[in-house]
């Protein structure tokens, strides 16, 4: 009976969302305060009902209620509690429920903290959020209802996909969704601003915290997914350019562009239309991501429930949302042109260049992702677009972007001289050049491309620190004076340089890993050894270990270096009898700079097949993005961005300009 409460709560949330998507908009049109305030109530009500619904489903999963079809299909009573819990969203229906739950959380956050928004804008934002919510709630109720009962209830369920029974992957979707759905705020604010027909100068200031938070979560989500692929898939790869990975990467790229263009809009009242358009594009890309994963139009490991009717529904939603929003944009945007002049060498100009590169990169990823589909439809030909394509197209763009992100932050707003800016980076640039030449010499000029990208990575990291120390006049004035300046420097400035440095670390990690990794494989018996040069991997023993709901074959290895034992790792092959599936767990030793990665394969007369990898730089591939996410959170704590903090923005509407903060 309790499950019906969850179902009913979901229906209530749906009807409420229909009201939310109309009443506040009428209110805003007729300037009726009561109607507008309904949006606030409805948004909070939606959160309450969806939360009830989600809690009910979670309860059903945790207690293995197999009278629910969804639970039967995706859970099993032998699964450990943690995976019975995470199984709630480890399936299509449940993950969509999580999607709308997060949407409702964002919606009610506007309701709670939006007190400083102009009332009509707030009403419109909530109205648009309501529309998005209504679309997805309808999608759940009509095509993907998790509350269907099954009669008679089976004794046990068919288990969560073993690949998803992993802590990294269990928390990967919530972070990803916090990102995807968080971008709905940019979308709602953009559409609301367009229907208002005017842009408040403080618009960017209201939107940026939401976009920044969403961006941080998406960064973490993608990083987790990549790390999961690394240790779970058993061959040391960390990015496939798989359509589904690309689906999460495109909103990230566009969202990164949006963060930067919103900065120009906030400080300089430029790029107003462009920023709004980016808000629409970023969320549309999130919807496309959902569409790719859910429709099964492009097959992938992630597409756990692919059903054409669902695909059509989401495609219709996408067409409505993106099409509707772009139409309003086309109608309204020309009337809202607003620009403040800047010279070709200026902070604005570098941020525009950032946007140009990021959006071009997004377009390239999109081209690569959808091209096979296009060719299949038009020419009936099957094609693959893999890593070699992106290495030739996407990677060079990122290298240019890195150069821009060293110079950009040191440029002054409005106009600057390139020689002056480079002068501030003199030290960092000289060290970088020396490092690059040393790398080239040490590798005998064999890896010129790698040396260049390493040089860029070093330049980004050193440049960020140089820019920061220039700002606080380190070593130019007394130390205590510098300390004072460091303390009064806004947090968002730290966020900026930390985030950029994170990108540099990632570039270093990727380059070193790609160029200098190597592997050894062999069939080993106990005591057998593989030599990775600076590390040796010795097989101690192989034994069968029972898990809670699987049987594991576990191989224990000792890792030695220079004759000394430094670590012991184990890798496993797990067999899940319910689904008859096998997964692998790699044994990884890491010292923060180098990973030694050991995976096992088949047993044969010669012994057990072992693949051992030397992965230099690998830890930084995830450390870099992690720093980027941290940097985002550091920026979020900036007083100027704090959600709900008293802001001057209320009074600075219309044409009024905000004082440039730096």
């Amino acid at each position, binding site marked *: 009976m309790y499950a019906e409460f969850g179902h009913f709560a979901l229906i209530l949330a749906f009807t409420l969302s229909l009201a939310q998507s109309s009443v506040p908009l009428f209110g805003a049109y007729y300037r009726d305060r009561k109607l507008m305030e309904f949006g606030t109530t409805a948004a909070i009500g939606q959160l309450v009902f969806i939360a009830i619904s989600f809690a009910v489903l979670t309860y059903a999963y945790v207690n293995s209620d197999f009278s629910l079809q969804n639970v039967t299909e995706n859970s099993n009573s032998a699964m450990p509690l943690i995976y019975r819990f995470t199984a709630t969203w480890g399936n299509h229906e449940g993950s969509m429920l999580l999607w709308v739950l997060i949407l409702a959380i964002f919606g009610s956050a506007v309701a709670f903290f939006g007190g400083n928004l102009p009332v009509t804008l707030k009403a419109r934002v909530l109205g648009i959020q309501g529309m998005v919510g209504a679309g997805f709630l309808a999608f759940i109720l009509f095509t993907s209802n998790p509350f269907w009962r099954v009669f008679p209830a089976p004794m046990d369920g068919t288990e969560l996909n073993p690949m998803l029974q992993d802590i990294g992957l269990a928390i990967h979707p919530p972070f990803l969704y916090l990102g995807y759905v968080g971008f709905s705020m940019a979308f709602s604010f953009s559409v609301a601003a367009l229907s208002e027909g005017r842009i408040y100068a403080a618009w960017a200031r209201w939107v940026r915290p939401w976009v920044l938070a969403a961006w941080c979560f998406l960064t973490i989500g993608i990083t987790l997914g990549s790390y999961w692929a690394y240790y779970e*898939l*058993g*061959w040391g*790869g960390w990015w*496939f350019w*798989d*359509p*589904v990975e690309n689906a999460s990467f495109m909103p990230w790229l566009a969202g990164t562009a949006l963060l930067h263009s919103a900065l120009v809009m906030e400080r300089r009242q430029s790029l107003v239309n462009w920023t709004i358009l980016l808000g629409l594009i970023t969320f549309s890309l999130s919807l496309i991501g959902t569409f790719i994963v859910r429709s099964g139009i492009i*097959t*992938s*490991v992630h597409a756990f429930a692919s059903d054409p009717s669902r695909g059509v529904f989401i495609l219709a939603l996408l067409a409505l949302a993106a099409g509707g929003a772009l139409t309003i944009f086309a109608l309204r945007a020309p009337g809202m042109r607003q*620009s403040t*002049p*800047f*010279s*070709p060498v200026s902070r604005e*100009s570098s941020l*525009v*260049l950032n946007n*140009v*590169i990021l*959006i*071009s990169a997004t*377009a*390239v990823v999109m*081209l*690569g992702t959808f*091209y096979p589909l296009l*060719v299949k439809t038009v*020419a009936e*030909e*099957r*094609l*693959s*677009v*893999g*890593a*070699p*394509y992106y290495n*030739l*197209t996407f990677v060079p*763009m990122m290298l240019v972007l890195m150069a821009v992100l060293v110079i950009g932050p040191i440029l002054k707003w409005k106009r600057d001289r390139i020689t002056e800016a480079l002068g501030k980076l003199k030290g960092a640039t000289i060290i970088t050049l020396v490092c690059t030449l040393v790398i080239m010499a040490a590798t005998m000029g064999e890896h010129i491309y790698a040396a260049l990208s390493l040089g860029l990575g070093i330049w980004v990291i050193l440049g960020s620190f140089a820019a920061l120390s220039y700002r606080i006049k380190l070593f130019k004035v007394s130390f205590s004076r510098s300390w004072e300046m460091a303390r009064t420097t806004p947090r968002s400035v730290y966020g900026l340089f930390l985030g950029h440095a994170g990108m540099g670390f990632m570039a270093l990690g990727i380059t070193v890993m790609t160029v200098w990794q190597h592997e050894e*494989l*062999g*069939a080993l018996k106990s005591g057998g050894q593989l030599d990775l040069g600076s590390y040796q991997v010795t097989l101690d023993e192989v034994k*069968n270990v*029972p898990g809670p709901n699987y*049987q594991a074959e576990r191989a224990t290895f000792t890792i030695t270096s220079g004759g000394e034992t430094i670590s012991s790792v184990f890798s496993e092959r797990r*067999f899940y*009898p319910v689904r*008859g599936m*096998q997964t*692998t767990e790699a044994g990884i030793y890491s010292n923060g700079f180098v990973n030694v990665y050991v995976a*096992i*394969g*088949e047993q*044969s007369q*010669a012994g057990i*097949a072992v*693949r051992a990898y030397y992965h230099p730089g690998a830890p930084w591939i995830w450390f870099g993005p992690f720093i980027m996410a941290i940097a985002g959170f550091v920026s979020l704590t900036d007083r100027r961005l704090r959600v709900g903090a008293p802001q001057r923005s209320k009074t600075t509407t219309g044409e009024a300009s905000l004082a440039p903060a730096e």
Partner: protein
Amino acid sequence: MTIRTFIAVQFLISLLVLPVHAIQPDEVLEDPALETRARDLGKVLRCVVCQNQSIDDSNAPLARDLRILVRERIEAGDTDEQALDFIVARYGNFVLLKPPLELSTLLLWFGPLLILMISGSVYWTLIHRKSANDIAAATPTPLSDKEQRDLRDILGKG
């Protein structure tokens, strides 16, 4: 049969029938030079039943067959191109992770260039239009007659 032995039996069966792991020791060629060539080819060939995984990285039996096929061709004295042609002739362009430049892939390969040209020109016009605005901002439009009159009124009153 208890559940535990059932699981154990299933487990043993699984070892016989389940997909093998990525490159196996028994596949490796004796000659390191030939093996290196096989590895390089393995990186650009797609495991046709997987998601954008190369045959070297895949656990699928089909990937293993392809790896062995590549090694057979190389041992038979094929050049890299001949070996690739041999495989493409059987599996189509789908096995190539890097699609060849053909009529059907023109847009794929020149698309990025096109995208860069468009966005580059947008960037160019943007920074130049801005500087034109700059000049416009430096020379304000003269006041209209009405504004002149208003100004005189205000000044007269002040």
